[in-house]
């Protein structure tokens, strides 16, 4: 495998290259969030194989990829829900790979989790309040600002979060994350299960959030949506970055190849079988 840097810096189309490509400078100047050789495991199962990623201040970056490509795992690793080596993830140059999940919000890193995950016994307003309750970060976002952004939430502020429609719940989840006045907002599949018109409403808020100085990472399965909203795109495939670039620089064919792994990349890799080799030895103690 070649160790030479790819000639086009924004384009890494070979899925097998991403792993061995030389790591970019660990702390890119200007990057508010970056990862270097990020790996992630669920027990014995490896889900990420050396992901290099960066997000610059004020940028909107989309991550696309098929189911199981490792997109959600990647976001979970960023916020500490999956533990890593400290210097695999940097926030503002600070190593945060090993931080506790409760520490991110104080730094200015907020996640809109997949499936919205509102607190079911809290009202809309309480869900929003709790987002900003444990950080003293100053910023533009407050209850009023959220209600301005999503007026329907103001009308339903005293309803249980669970009583809202899917789209409204998604607004609450975004609002909850914004309440901490984050510098980086991570959005996991915010369009999942919503009607196209609702998706459009939700994405309509992105420019406004960005205008307040927040950088955004959106994980999307909908490629068109991702290309429309993002400054740059990363495509994940089987736990690796298979393609990155600006929407304008990427062709449909490249994306298709990087998305589904149909590329000229050569022989089907053995890594899937390897990663699923679960060590059963450890698990017979109490009698199978």
């Amino acid at each position: 495998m070649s160790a030479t840097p790819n000639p086009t810096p924004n384009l890494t189309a070979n899925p097998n290259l991403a792993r061995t490509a030389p790591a970019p400078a660990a702390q890119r100047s200007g990057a508010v969030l970056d990862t270097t050789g990020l790996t992630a495991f669920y027990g014995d199962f490896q889900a990420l194989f050396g992901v290099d990623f960066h997000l610059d201040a004020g940028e909107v970056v989309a991550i696309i990829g098929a189911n199981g490509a490792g997109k959600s795992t990647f976001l979970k690793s960023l916020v500490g829900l999956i533990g890593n080596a400290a210097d695999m993830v940097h926030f503002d140059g600070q190593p945060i790979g090993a931080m506790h999940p409760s520490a991110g919000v104080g730094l200015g890193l907020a996640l809109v989790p997949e499936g919205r995950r509102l607190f079911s016994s809290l009202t809309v307003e309480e869900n929003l309040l709790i987002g900003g309750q444990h950080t003293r970060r100053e910023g533009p976002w407050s209850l009023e600002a959220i209600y301005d952004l999503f007026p329907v939430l103001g009308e339903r502020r005293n309803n249980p979060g669970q009583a809202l429609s899917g789209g409204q719940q998604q607004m609450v989840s975004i609002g909850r994350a914004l309440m901490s006045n984050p510098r980086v907002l991570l959005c996991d599949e915010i369009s999942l299960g919503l009607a196209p018109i609702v998706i459009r409403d939700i994405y309509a808020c992105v420019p406004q959030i960005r205008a307040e100085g927040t950088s955004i990472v959106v994980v999307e399965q909908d490629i068109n949506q991702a290309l429309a909203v993002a400054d740059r795109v990363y495509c994940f495939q089987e736990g690796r970055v298979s393609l990155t670039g600006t929407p304008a620089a990427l062709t449909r064919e490249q994306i298709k190849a990087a998305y589904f792994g149909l590329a000229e990349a050569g022989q089907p890799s053995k890594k899937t079988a390897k990663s699923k080799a679960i060590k059963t030895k450890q698990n017979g103690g109490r009698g199978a």
Partner: protein
Amino acid sequence: MTQATKPSDHSSLQIRQNTATGTIALLVFLAAGVLAACLPLLGNTLAVQWAREFLMLLALASLWNLLAGYAGLVSVGQQAFVGFGAYAFLHFSLSADKSIGQDWTQIDPITGLGKTITLADSFPAWMFVGPLHPLVSVLLAMVLGGLLAVPLSWIVFRLRGPYFAIGTWVVAVVVQLVVGQLGWLGKGTGTAISLDYAFRFGDINAVHNAFQAINPDTKKVFAREAYRFWMMLAATMLILLGILVVIRSRIGLALAAIRDNEAAASALGVNPTRLKLLLFVAVGAATALVGAIGAFDESGLLPVKNFSLLEYTAFIIFIVVIGGIGSFEGPIIGSVIYFVADKVLTGLVGEYFYIVLGVIGILVMLFAPKGLWGLVQERTGFTLFPVRRHVIFGNKEQDA
């Protein structure tokens, strides 16, 4: 490992569960049983009593381990079955003509005593079928224990997880209170099984005669103690072997599947509730059997004693946790440690013993949740009684 198995491989696929150590361990286990059976020949009452106490701990600990460690049914109410078995045994030792006091309004002119009141005077005579032979009595107690477990399960199986634990406790208290209200069983104030009861039966007399042939001074009490010890030994051996058979069988496999993922197991055709119910009933029956054998004793029955939460559940839990929960060997090790500690430490530290025990229990749970046997296994990978199945592909062996 599944991905290596193609259909054609099946001809060369064997499943092996036994190991050489396992066979040896089983033989040693049986030999120890035979050897233990000879213990009363030494003629030492204390040794026989201690051995019987140990066996009771071992049997109860192994049974509780089967419930909690394998089936995930954390019961804090097993004392219900111990006490119930004891009182069932008492019941079968009674005959309708047993005297339960004097009626002082009808004084016998010759003896000057009140007229003797019998059980039949106060209760319907058909209730009393005894005195039955102790062996028959303990077996009946076992059956009744199993029957008792059925209605109790209707109640406690409605509760999940931690609430199941307290539910079993409440139910045990209710059983104790109800038994404590039964007039013919002493009504909560205690009652004793007389020595004469045992010697109504030829074989116990024969045991006594045999001991007297060895040592003419052998007392009747000792013969009864020896008889009881043998019953406890037989019961314990059968219980342990039964547990081994269960956890090595398809039931054990199903339990492991339920423990790993209940939903997936039921999707594969395992019926978790029915299996747990079956186990609850079987363990209830065996626990009642142990309790019944324990009651064959002169010192008398008392609800608070025979339904003791501390003695028949709390200590048993500590034994299992310290020894290693969820392994066959754990309760054995735990029982040995507890028994030695009880006999040695109680003398040294008195009432602090319970506190020490509690602290050790907490420390083990926090730092070695698989107990001492788990520690041994982690270090050595050694197992005495193999439960795991080993899949052999052609000539390559792998754990499964």
